[in-house]
Structures are given as structure tokens and as C-alpha cells.
């Protein structure tokens, strides 16, 4: 698949997630774009290889992450545009708010005490903040095991 085709797949996946319809399977992407499923799978493979998205382990027809969106529920819930989304981590959850215009909330829990915690943004400004963000993995190794990261 050429670069333009991969970009078309990238944008379809992202915009589907942005619209609140979740991360589409390769079959759904193929139908929407009028391409063969094997082409959509190839697009997903190239996007994963380029560290743009992340494949579901053991299933090349599905994405686990269409960054910043998670295809599965996580502890990082996002409320924006009247819809609910899930981020892969606190970075990506904030990224969903950014991508959706810069107004929204990220809700999570302290992994230690379980206390609910919220970050809120309006017009690209952080208007409610609490806590500290912890990175376990040095930046140079973020993609070594991205699902763990």
C-alpha cells in the first residue's frame, strides 16, 4: 500500500474514533474506504511498523491503540464533546482532549489509593489539576513494549 493509501487508512481510523464510534476493525475500515480487507490489514501493519498505531497482539485485523485512543476501556476515561473515550495512558487521555478541540475532562484513579482524580481543560488551558504524573520507562524506550508503557 502506498503512502497516500496508508494515510487514508490512518485518518479513517482516527476520525471514526474521534466521532465516538470506537476504533474500527480492518474489515470495517475496508468497507468504509471501498478497499479490500487485505489492504486495510496492510495499512494497519504499516501504521504499527511506523509507531503511529498499535496492533492487537496476535490479531493483525485489529488495533489495540489508535493513538491517542484505546480500542478497549482503560483507567483513563475522557469526557469531551458530550461523549466518552478511553486513552491508553494519562498522556494519551490528555491528547484526546487536545485532538477534540482542547475542552474536556480526564478522569482516572490514583493507582496507589484508588482516589478519583480529574484533570480538566477549557479552550486549551488546564483549569483543574491535581497529582503528579509518573513515567516508569525512559523516553528512549517508550516503544520497546508500548502496551506495558
Amino acid at each position, binding site marked *: 500500500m502506498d503512502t497516500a493509501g496508508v494515510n487514508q487508512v490512518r485518518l479513517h481510523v482516527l476520525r471514526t474514533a474521534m466521532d465516538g464510534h470506537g476504533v474500527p476493525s480492518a474489515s470495517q475500515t475496508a468497507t468504509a474506504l471501498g478497499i479490500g480487507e487485505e489492504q486495510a490489514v496492510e495499512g494497519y501493519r504499516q501504521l504499527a511498523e511506523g509507531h503511529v498505531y498499535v496492533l492487537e497482539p496476535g490479531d493483525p485485523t485489529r488495533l489495540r491503540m489508535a493513538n491517542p485512543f484505546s480500542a478497549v476501556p482503560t483507567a483513563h476515561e475522557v469526557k469531551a464533546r458530550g461523549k466518552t473515550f478511553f486513552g491508553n495512558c*494519562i498522556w494519551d487521555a490528555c491528547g484526546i482532549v487536545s485532538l477534540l478541540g482542547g475542552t474536556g475532562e480526564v478522569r482516572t484513579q490514583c493507582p496507589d489509593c484508588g482516589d478519583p482524580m480529574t*484533570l480538566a481543560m477549557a479552550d486549551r488551558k488546564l483549569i483543574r*489539576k491535581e497529582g503528579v504524573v509518573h*513515567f516508569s520507562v525512559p523516553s528512549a524506550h517508550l516503544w520497546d513494549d508500548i502496551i506495558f*508503557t
Partner: protein
Amino acid sequence: MLLFRSEEHVERSGTPAGAFMSADQIWGLADAWYHDRDDPQWRRRNLEESQKVFDDLGLKGDFWNLG
């Protein structure tokens, strides 16, 4: 990357050592990283461009070195 109540809660949880950033920094990082992701012309940043995003947020030192 997880949001904890405080650094003490990170230590208490037994989470492996790493590094911290503030809520302002994570929002700045996320906004810089993702705001234009739906632009058809978007392309992945190269190493230098990515490092500049970290540097501009004051995230400097070995832990934040992408190279």
C-alpha cells in the same frame, strides 16, 4: 504513564523508579503531541523535533532523552 495523588503515593505503591512530570507538563506535552493529529498532512515527528517538544517543556536529562 499514570497520574498519582503525590510522589509519596508512587513510592508507597511499589512502582519502579522513573521520573515525574507535573499536570501542566503532561497537558503541554499532550497538546503539542496530538493537537494536529487529524490533519491530512500530519507526519510523525523526527527525533530532533520530538526532543524539542520535551525540551521546551523543561523535560531535560537522560530520562527524557529520546535518542
